[in-house]
């Protein structure tokens, strides 16, 4: 069950090269194999290096490049692991058990370090420098972020996103999960698929769909084609430019994220609800609970840890929202959010220091949520 026992297994049964204690002939072949493996490791690394060169050459045939990439990528990695494992096996048993995990996890750790940890550190350093990175400015960028109204609006909006979106996603998700549970099995599958479908639509795609719902034509620019204005004018009102409506426009943008994420919340919560033992609900009914009390006092507490995981996952998504705002309003009319502001600073205003500072803010906000999430998940796994 637990990791220690796994390690113990490895110690007690280290994979041995075939035919080790046999004749001298066998022993010789073992050594040949080991020397061969020792040569394979640098050879494969060289092969990788040359393959990169080859793949970057614009003159070669594309199909050939793809084939080479697949063969060398998959085969090379396999060969590398095989050779390294063989070398580790040559070590004394106890040492081999200690080294082997690093042989397998090592490459992944290196890649993660290279593509994740290094950029993070680099971003933090950049955030302490000026617009073109030439001078160290201390926390000036952060001071600007938390004092200038432009950035404060982005921060405020992100906080509202982080509060509103998870509430609606989890609320709707829970409601649909519970109600769908009451439907006949086949209908339930259809309903849930339909609600899950928006998950498959990209944020940009979803934004385009909603753009047409919110769209507004000023006087003299043709008929109103937006769904929302169609309803609004049918009720006898004048058409409204929804995406420029102060403050409310933020909520219209959030609706898009809610539309795509509700399906996610529903699927996870639905399986959690189905996991609540029937006897528990029956016991509560016999104890005198109404259906609502059963739901609130038994079902909800039982699936609480799942709700937290769903909540935090969506919370993190809200902080990363960029595409919706970029497509719909470009951050105008007080709809800017942190991630969107970050891209604008980097690429429109060429202010690397400020952009990096916004990235650091994002990281600092998301990190504790992520840690809570992982902790929760581990707890859940532990009780299983």
């Amino acid at each position, binding site marked *: 069950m637990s990791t220690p026992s796994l390690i113990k297994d490895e110690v007690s049964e280290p994979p041995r090269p075939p035919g080790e204690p046999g004749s001298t002939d066998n022993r010789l072949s073992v050594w040949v194999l080991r020397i061969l493996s020792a040569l394979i490791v640098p050879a494969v690394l060289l092969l990788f290096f040359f393959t990169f060169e080859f793949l970057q050459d614009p003159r070669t045939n594309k199909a050939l490049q793809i084939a080479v990439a697949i063969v060398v990528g998959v085969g090379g990695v396999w060969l590398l692991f095989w050779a390294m494992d063989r070398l580790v096996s040559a070590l004394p048993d106890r040492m081999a058990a200690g080294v082997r995990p690093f042989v397998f996890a090592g490459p992944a750790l290196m890649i993660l370090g290279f593509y994740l940890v290094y950029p993070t550190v680099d971003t933090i350093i950049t955030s302490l420098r000026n617009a073109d990175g030439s001078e160290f400015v201390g926390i000036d960028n952060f001071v600007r972020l938390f004092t200038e109204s432009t950035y404060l609006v982005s921060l405020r909006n992100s906080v509202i996103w982080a509060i509103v979106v998870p509430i609606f996603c989890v609320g709707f998700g829970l409601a649909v999960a519970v109600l769908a549970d009451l439907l006949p099995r086949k209908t339930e599958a259809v309903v849930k698929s339909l609600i899950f479908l928006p998950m498959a639509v990209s944020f940009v795609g979803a934004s385009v769909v909603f753009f047409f719902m919110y769209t507004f034509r000023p006087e003299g620019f043709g008929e109103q084609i937006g769904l929302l204005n169609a309803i609004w004018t049918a009720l006898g009102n004048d058409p409204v430019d929804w995406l420029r409506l102060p403050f409310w426009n933020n909520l219209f943008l959030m609706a898009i994220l809610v539309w795509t994420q509700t399906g996610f919340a529903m699927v996870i919560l639905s399986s959690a609800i189905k996991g609540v033992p029937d*006897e*528990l609900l*029956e016991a509560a*009914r016999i*104890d*005198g609970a*109404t259906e609502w*009390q059963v739901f609130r006092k038994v079902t909800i507490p039982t699936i609480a840890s799942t709700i937290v995981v769903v909540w935090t996952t969506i919370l993190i998504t809200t902080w990363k929202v960029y595409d919706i705002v970029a497509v719909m309003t470009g951050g105008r009319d007080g709809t800017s959010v942190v991630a969107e502001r970050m891209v604008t600073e980097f690429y429109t205003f060429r202010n690397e220091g400020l952009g990096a500072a916004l990235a650091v803010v994002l990281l600092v906000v998301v990190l504790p949520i992520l840690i809570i999430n992982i902790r929760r998940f581990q707890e859940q796994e532990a009780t299983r």
Partner: protein
Amino acid sequence: MASITFENVGKVYPGGTRAIYDVSIHVEDGEFVVLVGPSGCGKSTLLRMVAGLEEVTEGKLYIGDRVVNDVPPKDRDIAMVFQNYALYPHMTVYENMAFGLRLRKMPDDEIDRRVQEAARILEIHEYLDRRPKALSGGQRQRVAMGRAIVREPAAFLMDEPLSNLDAKLRVQMRSEIGLLQERLGTTTLYVTHDQTEAMTMGDRVAVLRKISHEGESNLQQIDTPRNLYDNPDNLFVAGFIGSPSMNFVYGTIQEENGKLGVKFAGHTLSVDREAIAKRPSLSNYAGKEIVIGVRPEAFEIAQAVPNATDDQKMTVKPQLVEQLGSEAYVHFEMDSPPVITPDIQELLEDQGADEETLGSVTKFTARVNPDLAPETGQETVLVVDTSKLHYFDKDTGTAIR
């Protein structure tokens, strides 16, 4: 407190499957009635009907004088103990027990009084602040009982509450539940598939079975454990109740030289006229083949019964002798085809076996004095107490009386 009455109760599932037909049981106020039967016999369904968790589709169900067919579970004033305890995992033991009382808006001091009292009775005081996860199976069982007790309901419903416990604990909890019920005097309906549990706990035991043909009730017989054991109504009840179970063999009753004798598998034993006279219909079966039932304890080693006459004895060759110390089981075979009727087949099925396992001979088990137990393979003379024989119609399986 109240009585529970099933009046021609039936249950048909929406798909058209019939689970229950025409069951009538009256559980007296304060009585402990056990529903027992093989899996699929409908015992749990009946219990869940009383709880209000299953719809009653035919007949009437009373709790006290009130018809409760359409009363939701929360208004039935009953408490149920589930097989897997169904404790609320997010509440402490105390909260688990108090939950039902809180829902009824009972004042806090009264809740506390009842929970403390139940915890004292069940000796779970020290666990009151723990979560169910931190308790052993036996402790969870007690908490589940406590949750039922604090409610002071009209009736307890228990659905195989001991089946998740290990054998030793089960025996201990069996007597504890029995004592508790006696002390509280609460009407109790208890479901189990274990006939020992049924016999030891129930004031009365209802034996149920799966409906095999249209128009047959699930209820086979309801009586006190003693009567059920001594006077089973049919082969099913006879074979289900008792461990080791009753031996069956095809045989006849005939009169020879002015003496009544029962003949089976080459043996002839004389029968007391009185024993036959108690079963008047038996005379209609004279000379016809019937099924004869012999409880293992109707046998004894001949040396232990000095005044036995020769016409009560039979010589057998034990295939296997099991010495338990307090008693010994002698297994032997008789040259006669095994008794196979629908009743027997159903009992075999419940044990995960079929008629193939019986082979082509009749297998018997005798329970004898452990001090006189023979060796395996050693010819042994057994005495049969023929006044304790049971007689069944071989086609219908009903007892001949």
